[in-house]
């Protein structure tokens, strides 16, 4: 078991004929995932990845023809919001958007739109999902992870790699690694994934890597306090980050919460999360926790 993606996932890539899209689609295919097609409006009927997969004009068409249930999006920012909504309306179960730089107001509408469908959406501006030895849906380098029992949730890309690397040094692997993205509006939160990892029998411990800003880590920690039986190890990047250089007050007033690293770590610890102080100690702490 794992969460979100596995060897049976049938993956299409939106924007597969672009340079980013074709490069990473090839990488996902080489990792061993079932990349079954691509979508580029106007290029339906052609093929991509050196003839390996067909290209369709729409997600609905691609799903009809291939039975796809996962879509990976590399569409440029001005068209990405529309691409996500198309995938959701087309009945794709899991949508992963890698694109960085989508206007936030458009993402507010995308999130509301996706919530009216049965789709789950991850991202945008994220490295995607990796279930070791089964499927890679995103841009994480495959070699960083290996099969294991630690669920890894992270707001940040390279810090996810760092954590996976540290686990490897300790001889540990992952059930699934997910980069959720650090944008103000994202499709799937830490809390959503915490619930899934708690329900996944293969996962024995969960790592949550957060950052300053927002209150997502706190919401997840408060849920974990009562509802998660597995050990949760948390890290918050940005202890030394300067306080946001802002001009007005509205940002501070709206959340009402202290979003600094220190405040988040304190609240997380109060909820029973094992908080790691040094970013170099993530792997070691998981090892010690599992050995207890």
């Amino acid at each position: 078991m794992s969460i979100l993606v596995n060897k049976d996932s049938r993956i299409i890539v939106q924007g597969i004929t672009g340079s980013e899209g074709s490069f990473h689609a090839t990488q996902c295919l080489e990792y061993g995932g079932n990349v079954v097609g691509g979508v580029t409006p106007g290029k339906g009927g052609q093929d991509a990845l050196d003839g390996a997969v067909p290209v369709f004009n729409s997600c609905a068409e691609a799903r009809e023809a291939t039975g796809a249930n996962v879509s990976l999006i590399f569409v440029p920012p001005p068209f990405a919001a529309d691409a996500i909504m198309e995938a959701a309306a087309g009945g794709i179960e899991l949508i992963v958007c890698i694109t960085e730089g989508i206007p936030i107001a458009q993402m507010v509408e995308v999130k509301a739109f996706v919530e009216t469908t049965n789709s789950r959406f991850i991202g945008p501006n994220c490295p995607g999902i990796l279930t070791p030895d089964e499927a890679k849906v995103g841009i994480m380098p495959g070699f960083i992870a290996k099969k294991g029992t630690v669920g890894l949730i992270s707001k940040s890309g390279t810090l996810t790699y760092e954590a996976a690397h540290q686990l490897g040094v300790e001889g540990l692997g992952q059930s699934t690694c997910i980069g959720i993205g650090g944008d103000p509006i994202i499709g799937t939160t830490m809390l959503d994934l915490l619930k899934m990892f708690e329900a996944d029998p293969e996962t024995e411990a969960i790592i949550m890597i957060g950052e300053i800003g927002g209150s997502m880590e706190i919401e997840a920690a408060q849920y974990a306090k009562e509802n998660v039986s597995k050990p949760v190890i948390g890290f918050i990047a940005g202890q030394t980050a300067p306080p946001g250089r802002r001009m007005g007050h509205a940002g501070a007033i709206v959340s009402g919460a202290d979003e600094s690293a220190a405040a988040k770590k304190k609240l997380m610890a109060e909820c029973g999360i094992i908080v790691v102080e040094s970013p170099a100690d993530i792997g070691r702490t998981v090892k010690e926790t599992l050995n207890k």
Partner: protein
Amino acid sequence: MKIHEYQAKELLKAYDIPIQDGVTIEEIGQAEAAIEQVSKELGAEQYVIKAQVHAGGRGKGGGVKFSTSRASALENIQNILGMILVTHQTGAEGRLVKKVMVAEALDIQQEFYAAITLDRSKGQDVFMVSSEGGMEIEEVAKTSPEKIVKVAIVPGFGLRPFQARNLALALGLEGAAAKQAISMFQKLYKLYRELDCSIVEINPLIVTEQGDLIALDAKMNFDDNALYLHTNVAEMRDLDEEDPAEVEAGKYNLNYIKLDGTVGCMVNGAGLAMSTMDIIMQVGGSPANFLDVGGGANVETVKNGFRIILSDENVKAVLINIFGGIVRCDRIANGIIEAVKELDLTVPVVVRLEGTNADVAKEILANSDVAIISADSFEDAAQKVVQAAAGN
């Protein structure tokens, strides 16, 4: 992106929202003509001279002065234009005032607060008002949050008329003033949404002795991701208000923020970059900057990164911490060596490369003829660079 008060007021005006108007000048030679224009066109007999900088707290810092005559207006312009304004948002070094708004003075009966921004946790915009307008709004939020009334905007539906009415009611407005408020709030949300603002804040929003509702001040921030949709807004960017090194970094798509320490950092990815700063602090050093070189680190990005880091003369050592994913570490190592040679670096450089071909990369660094200190782990790298900075 931030803009000045006078620019925000231009946008409000374009949306037919009543503002405290005025004329903005950059040179003292324009002062008398500006006062004349404000007197003539706006019928003002008294004036407010307002420093235009990208920071709040201007009034307390002495950057806003009430002037009862043309002579005192001129004197206040002379004092404010060119001053170093220090507020709680500028830092101790303050900000040089390069522009001044000569505004009409208005008779204030009541002061309110109105703002729109995104509520990240709900994924919705939120419109907030408070009857306690003026300078201490964050204090109000802490001590009596019930005095800030919030309305959530359902995505795609905009601010509905009943919501605007509720906001006006929350301010205790009646009659003509309530009508003005309802119309203003709807226009304000339209502006926020159409121009992809991240914050619109009117503080204070005033009712004059004559019963008119007017935006006395205005702050606006914009979503950088959406600036390509609004060239008129993008043109309002004032580079004088930004750190020159940060502007330079932006040209190369590098994300740089200057800090006060002595250890320069070059890292790929924002989370890893913040963590690198954290660990430097934990082992007893102090980071000189945040620098995220992005996903595709190559010779050019490394070179540009070095140039920007070393433009800060406090830097005593540099740590490069790169986790090679798609990019191979051996190529990054060669890039670092080339950059160090070409730029003739005099500060010690500690390098930690992890990921694809990391072993090959370490060998390349060890066998090179440049003085690079190679590190094995995250912690090792932090300790080595802090030692190097202390000894330099």
